[in-house]
């Protein structure tokens, strides 16, 4: 099967651009409207806790249904078949961690940031500084993934194949998203997220129904078509195409699976979403809503991924300018021509914009609220000044994201996201769970867990084959890797739990019993956590 698209000419750039332009204008208008009620710090960071559970649930899924999910997973399934499907399974199951263990307690004990929860019963300054460091590092990695996705998408959408041209587009994307955050704050960002999540869901559902119809409503037929059109043949449908080569790759697979399931409910920008609802019941409802949308979405990715291979062919996908990430757009062009391609690309772009906006907000909130207000000003910052600092930080974060995105351009975005998830699970999960459920947990334990998890994870990423040594590494020309796994989660996540435990045991400073009582009662009952 030959596809003209493989040469990179994908529909008409003018049409693609105008569909995208309409989306940007519409959301900018919404952001502008939402901004008129942004007055206090609570409005800027947490939208005044005014969203309902269902609204926040959609936004929550929007925050997570990033370009990584849409482009990365469909591409992963299209090229690697069953091994790409693992991401889908992990990311659905992961919401149970948030539902059962984290969402409600977090809503009840924090106000704006993860640092609020971690520092609740600990010494404020060191713990808040550590929490902010973790948030900044995690958000930066996650952002890299999104910006890399933007680069690939642009390559396909506008037929910009030069790295310089792609860099210019990444800069434009970055500027728009910083603008969303500066003007709209949490309220504007949430609305962008809701609009985009709805568009994305409609888009994938319709595509899925169309594909199923084309193949006689049989998943089996789609899989058969995929196997025929993929370089791996029948092996595509079985586990092991990507991760089955050796004992090391199998361990890598398990490490990845662990990061996927434990990472989501530890991502700062996802956690921050729980503050936008008025109480714990609504926080629970939002996770339930998010779970439904996730289940539908990831079921669709299975069909779309296999369908893309069946109709476009894995060779054509890999030869396209965006590589693996271009499976979904290519499929759209194949079945719906230039118009559908324009729509799909606009939705994917919107996704990147919205998610990066959410990340920028989380990072800037963490810096302004934890570092500036509580570490530098020791809790005496003026709220207006704090929001000003948050806005300035948003600009700085945006610049960093643009620079990082240009550097990471071309990597598989789902893989980059999995690194961010490993970092999140390593730095945040152990500390959140310990401080909620373990009475003795204290300041030293918190610091050890955050820095132990984050530090080990960073070091292992730097010395992993994903960073140097291989043809697909970020620095392919040098080789200084000694850690065999691409994903460090298998080591760093248990290590952070261990560090938290050992640090607590070794500390001479006992836990603050009064604050522990306050935190536990607040977490479970919500007493004292009114808006």
């Amino acid at each position, binding site marked *: 099967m030959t596809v003209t698209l493989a040469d990179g000419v994908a529909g008409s750039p003018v049409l693609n651009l105008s569909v995208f332009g309409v989306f940007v204008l519409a959301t900018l208008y919404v952001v502008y409207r939402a901004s008129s009620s942004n007055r206090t710090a609570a409005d800027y960071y947490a939208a005044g806790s005014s969203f309902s559970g269902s609204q926040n649930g959609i936004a929550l899924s929007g925050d997570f249904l990033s370009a990584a999910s849409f482009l990365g997973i469909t591409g992963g399934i299209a090229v690697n078949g069953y091994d790409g*499907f*693992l991401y889908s*399974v992990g990311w*659905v199951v992961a919401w149970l961690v948030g539902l059962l263990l984290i969402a409600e307690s977090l809503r009840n004990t924090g106000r704006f940031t993860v640092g609020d929860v971690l520092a609740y019963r600990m010494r404020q300054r060191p713990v808040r500084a550590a929490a902010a460091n973790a948030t900044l590092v995690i958000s930066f990695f996650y952002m890299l993934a999104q910006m890399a996705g933007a680069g690939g998408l642009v390559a396909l959408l506008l037929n910009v194949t030069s790295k310089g041209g792609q860099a210019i587009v990444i800069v434009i994307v970055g500027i728009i998203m910083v603008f969303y955050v500066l003007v709209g704050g949490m309220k504007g960002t949430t609305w962008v997220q809701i609009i985009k999540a709805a568009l994305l869901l409609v888009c994938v559902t319709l595509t899925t129904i169309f594909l199923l119809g084309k193949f006689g409503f*049989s998943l089996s037929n789609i899989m058969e078509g995929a196997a025929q059109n993929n370089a791996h043949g029948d092996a595509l449908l079985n586990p092991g195409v990507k*991760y089955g080569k050796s004992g090391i790759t199998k361990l890598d697979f*398990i490490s990845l699976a662990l990061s996927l399931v434990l990472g989501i409910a530890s991502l700062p920008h996802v956690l921050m979403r729980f503050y936008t609802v008025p109480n714990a019941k609504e926080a*629970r409802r939002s996770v339930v809503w998010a779970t439904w949308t996730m289940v539908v979405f990831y*079921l669709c990715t299975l069909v779309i991924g296999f369908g893309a291979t069946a109709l476009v062919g894995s060779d054509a996908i890999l030869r396209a300018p965006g590589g693996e990430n271009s499976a979904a757009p290519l499929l759209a062009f194949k079945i719906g021509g230039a118009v559908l391609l324009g729509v799909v690309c606009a939705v994917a772009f919107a996704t990147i914009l919205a998610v990066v906006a959410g990340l920028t907000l989380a990072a800037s909130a963490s810096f302004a609220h934890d570092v500036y207000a509580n570490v530098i000003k020791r809790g005496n910052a003026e709220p207006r000044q704090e929001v000003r600092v948050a806005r300035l930080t948003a600009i700085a974060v945006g610049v960093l994201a643009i620079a990082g995105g240009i550097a990471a351009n071309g990597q598989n975005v789902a893989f980059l996201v999995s690194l961010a998830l490993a970092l999140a699970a390593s730095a945040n999960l152990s500390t959140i769970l310990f401080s909620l459920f373990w009475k003795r947990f204290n300041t030293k334990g918190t610091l050890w867990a955050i820095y132990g998890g984050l530090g080990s994870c960073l070091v292992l990423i730097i010395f992993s084959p994903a960073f140097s040594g291989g043809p697909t590494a970020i620095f392919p020309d040098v080789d200084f890797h000694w850690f065999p796994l691409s994903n460090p989660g298998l080591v760093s996540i248990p290590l952070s739990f261990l560090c938290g435990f050992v640090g607590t045991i070794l500390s001479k400073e006992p836990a603050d*019993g009064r604050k522990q009582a306050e935190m536990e009662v607040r977490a479970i009952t919500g007493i004292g956590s009114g808006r």
Partner: protein
Amino acid sequence: MTKAIPAAMDSRDPRASRAAGQGFTAFEGVTDGSMVDSDGNPDFAVIQQSPEFQELRRRLRRFVFPMSALFLAWYLTYVLFAAYAHDFMSQKVGGQVNVGIVFGLLEFVSTVIITLVYARYAKRRLDPQRDLVRSRAGVVEE
């Protein structure tokens, strides 16, 4: 919006107002004592020791800990099979659909079921008990 008010103002519970008048003397008999300190703020240490709260915490932990262990174990089983039991996962069960796909989809199903069960449990067993603790602590729901 919720806020704590001194139990003395809580006309629904005469015992609470009596206890509040006695300051901290009713510390031991928690159910009869005040859960509000002299400034009208919730007294978290007292609430934490109260049988109502202990029951709420027990109900919560009795559900979420075993359930978390269960779904994580179930997920890891799936992952281990996908990593090490390729032959088993590759068996066809109908057309091109193999055990691996079915196993993966079962993870979706279990997630849906656990979500539904928890939402129901929370509504029936946690929320009423939570409301009880909150009203005992003098929180007025609006």
